[in-house]
């Protein structure tokens, strides 16, 4: 008796495992796809944000010969520049940004071109393409609802990854089927078996950033014995400690030149790529300068909360204290190692594109999962009638329709004048209208295969004209971009062009009917 119950339990357990994976998967698939799709653009955000702005069209300076003093010291010498609350300086090169910015609370941010040491005017809120793509990645346009929705989607994603791994371990799958359904199933499993470890970490930190911190309120209340609801009040002293308050001596003394200070810091810790300078009590004899950066020799351990730093005296540059990567508290190190793959602060181009590749094939694996479900639904109908299915149409519009809609964003970026009123509103409004429009078109056309090909063709047109519009409107030809060392911007143009060609090739190759589709998928997968 007991044995038979155990057998039944394992049989039903396996069935439930599969069933719950399918139900949760299809419910959240489209949101997960949106998150992954825009996440890919968010990974290349440093390049897009340089591409989108005329004010950032200059060469990435060689960090060894930047004259920091020429930009920073005049600003600090201005008699009414407010330094009482500290000054923050971002050095060129951080997250692909070629400019140097100086900011202090309650003042305008000052932005400099390190090649000419001249101040430049930023477009500000007029140009937010990269930011918008990043916001779409985590539901920001829907405000709090979006955060909760995408956070919950991330939890569902974790559920699916864990459940999927268990499924692959306990259930025998048959890979030999000669139809599209079996191929989708095979590649859905195969890809995620390869990429689930990074995927799980990235999803985990995504869930943390969207709902984890917010949900920690009751926990914080309990463990602090009713002291506070806000976890950051307890964790910030460990993760992001405040700078010490230093009593002012109330005198004015000359400070060491910025170039000298950076050189001294570099000598003290040559492993750090410094990207941020914090000035405390500047021009007072108690002045301190804290130089923070990223240590590329210790990936996964620094970059997010752990910024190795060197603190120097402002007058003569004597070392006050320094923090190395491993000096951080262990909770900070764990926090940074989970966040590393998601945030990718300070990593090189190769790592960035490796993560792009992982996420790209994950997007395909997600797509195969949805196709697998749709194939199962369509299987019951005879081959010669087209299947009109609600989820199929919605997936078509969301998953394929988003590509031309995003292409439109890139086209509008350089077609609209930068001084246009409500420029960004118009840009994102057009994006939304186009995306909804693809849903209308998907529902109107009976043959989804044909519609998918059309969407991809429109997308390829959008993506192929956007670099040319960029060349024309910005006045920077590809040759000029190359000659003036703007490889990062030219790279975006080339990337868009190649992406368009791939989309066009795919749109031509994709099948036109259900019958062709079966042959097509069994041939290529």
């Amino acid at each position, binding site marked *: 008796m007991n044995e038979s119950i155990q057998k039944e339990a394992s*049989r039903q357990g396996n069935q439930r495992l599969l069933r719950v994976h399918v139900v949760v998967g299809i419910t959240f698939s489209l949101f997960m796809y949106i998150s992954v799709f825009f996440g890919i653009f968010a990974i290349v955000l440093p390049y897009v944000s340089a591409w989108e702005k005329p004010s950032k069209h200059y060469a990435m300076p060689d960090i060894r010969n930047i004259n920091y003093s020429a930009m920073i010291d005049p600003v600090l010498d201005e008699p009414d520049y407010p330094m009482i609350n500290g000054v923050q300086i971002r050095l060129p090169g951080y997250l692909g940004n070629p400019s140097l910015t100086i900011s202090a609370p309650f003042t305008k941010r000052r932005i400099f071109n390190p090649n000419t040491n001249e101040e430049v005017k930023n477009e500000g809120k007029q140009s937010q393409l990269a930011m918008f793509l990043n916001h779409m990645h985590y539901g920001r346009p829907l405000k709090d609802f979006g955060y909760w929705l995408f956070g919950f989607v991330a939890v*569902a994603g974790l559920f699916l990854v864990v459940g999927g791994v268990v499924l692959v371990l306990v259930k025998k799958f048959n890979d030999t089927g000669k139809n599209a359904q079996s191929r989708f199933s095979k590649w859905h499993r195969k890809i995620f078996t390869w990429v689930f470890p990074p995927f799980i970490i990235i999803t985990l930190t995504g869930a943390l950033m969207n709902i*984890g911190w917010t949900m920690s309120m009751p926990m914080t209340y*309990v463990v602090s014995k009713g002291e506070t609801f806000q976890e950051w009040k307890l964790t910030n002293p460990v993760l992001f400690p405040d700078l010490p308050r230093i009593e002012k001596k109330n005198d004015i003394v000359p400070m060491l030149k910025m170039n000298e200070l950076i050189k001294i810091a570099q000598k003290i810790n040559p492993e750090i790529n410094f990207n941020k300078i914090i000035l405390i009590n500047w021009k007072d004899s108690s002045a301190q300068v804290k130089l923070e950066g990223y240590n590329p020799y210790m990936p996964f351990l620094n970059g997010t909360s752990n910024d190795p730093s060197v603190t120097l005296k402002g007058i003569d540059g004597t070392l006050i204290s320094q923090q190395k990567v491993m000096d951080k508290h262990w909770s900070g190190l764990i*926090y940074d190692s989970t966040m590393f793959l998601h945030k990718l602060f300070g990593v090189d181009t190769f790592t960035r594109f490796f993560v792009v590749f992982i996420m790209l094939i994950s997007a395909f694996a997600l797509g195969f999962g949805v196709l697998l479900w749709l194939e199962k639904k369509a299987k019951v109908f005879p081959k010669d009638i087209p299947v009109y299915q609600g989820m199929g149409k919605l997936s078509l519009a969301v998953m394929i329709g988003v590509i031309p809609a995003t292409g439109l964003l890139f086209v509008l970026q350089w077609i609209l004048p930068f001084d246009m009123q409500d420029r960004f509103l118009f840009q994102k409004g057009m994006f939304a209208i186009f995306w909804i429009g693809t849903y209308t078109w998907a529902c109107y056309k009976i043959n989804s295969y044909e519609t998918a090909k059309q969407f991809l063709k429109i997308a390829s047109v959008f993506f192929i004209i956007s670099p040319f519009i960029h060349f024309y409107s910005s006045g920077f030809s590809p040759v000029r971009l190359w000659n003036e060392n703007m490889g990062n911007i030219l790279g975006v143009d080339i990337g868009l062009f190649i992406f368009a060609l791939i989309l066009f090739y795919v749109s031509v190759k994709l099948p036109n009917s259900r019958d062709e589709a079966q042959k097509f998928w069994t041939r290529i997968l």
Partner: protein
Amino acid sequence: MNKYYALYKELSKIENNGRKIGLFRTICSIFGGCFLSYLAMTLLVYILPGTVGESLTVPIVFHTIVWAMCSLWISIALTKWIALMRVFVPSFIFSILLVIFYNL
């Protein structure tokens, strides 16, 4: 008493197959899983060494994945009764431990 026994009988009935999850298991797994993992992570804050500020980060970071795991574990229970027990028994144990740690 008979009414409760009938309810227990109803909940612990083994279904014919596992092709339907049902609302009962769904609610148990989403909310029960969240509750259970939350208690577990709160307990972890006490177990990890260091001050509250030092040990709070890691449980918050890992709460969501523990939630997902608990939900999965609850949702594949053989009967509704087992699903219910998977929520309440560990939650009860964790709650008792939490009360002890809180007053320690």
